[in-house]
């Protein structure tokens, strides 16, 4: 990650909430943040003229192999997400895509898959690492975790409030060191 990116990300998660008139530790749906940033989120079943065969393949038969597809058109960033996934995974996937946009990442690596006739670009490893970090910050700000840790809240409860998975809460607790900070404060 770029130097200072982690600190920037924590601040960004508070800034976006402030810009939306929310408290800095407020829960935030990815769809609401996307709307604020004028990013269009689409579910496959809402794409006009899409065949039932395609929907069955992507949302039932092989729904675990893909998370999202995005492209730009006329200056608008559009994300198609896998609507069959669990709500917490959808939140995480969308925050990850939003994180790429907020970080001003440009996918430049060209690759293609046999059989797909659309040029695909991918982000590099550093960009993916940054999006993972920022996406998690956007979903659960550090200040929110600190608040929850002081109140000895369980991961499951925090996950429910922030539309996240318990594993994401655990990850954020580990990487932010909030529990250690709370322990030091109490003693």
């Amino acid at each position: 990650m770029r130097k200072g990116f982690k600190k920037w990300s924590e601040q960004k998660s508070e800034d976006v909430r402030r810009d939306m008139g929310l408290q800095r530790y407020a829960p935030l749906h990815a769809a609401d943040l996307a709307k604020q940033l004028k990013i269009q989120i689409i579910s496959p079943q809402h794409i006009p003229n899409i065949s039932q065969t395609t929907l069955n393949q992507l949302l039932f038969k092989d729904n675990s192999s893909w998370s999202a597809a995005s492209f730009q058109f006329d200056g608008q960033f559009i994300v198609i997400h896998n609507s069959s996934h669990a709500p917490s995974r959808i939140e995480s996937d969308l925050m990850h895509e939003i994180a790429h946009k907020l970080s001003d990442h440009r996918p430049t690596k060209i690759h293609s898959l046999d059989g797909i006739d659309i040029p695909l670009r991918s982000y590099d490893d550093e960009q993916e690492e940054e999006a993972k970090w920022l996406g998690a910050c956007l979903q659960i700000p550090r200040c929110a975790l600190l608040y929850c840790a002081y109140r000895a809240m369980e991961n499951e409860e925090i996950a429910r409030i922030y539309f996240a998975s318990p594993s994401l809460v655990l990850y954020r607790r580990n990487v932010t060191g909030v529990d250690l900070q709370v322990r030091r404060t109490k003693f």
Partner: protein
Amino acid sequence: MASSINIRKLSEELRAHRGNRPLREIAGEISTKIGKVSASTLSRIEQGKIPDLDTFVKVCKWLGVDTDRFLDSSSRLPTNTPEVIEAHLRADKILNPETISALSEMIRLAYSDAKGRASMEK
């Protein structure tokens, strides 16, 4: 299986076409005639780094060759569509053919819908 530009071939042909002329001169020529490309980008291509799509197309134009020359058959840019859609996809590296076909249709239709709505709004 993912495939990509034959960077070795592109690198060799760029170097051969450039000859003894400095990269900065070549970059200036491409930028003037076709579109902006930096000398450092050309250097990276010659070192075997795959360029982004825009740069790739510009370099091919300067070389006077079709883009197909450096792509294997599964990577060929579509020539029967009026424009090229470029997408980012978060998915497993290996996908079954039915899923690939479905993803392709999904992206194309979403793009067409976005284009249609943009036309109506203008």
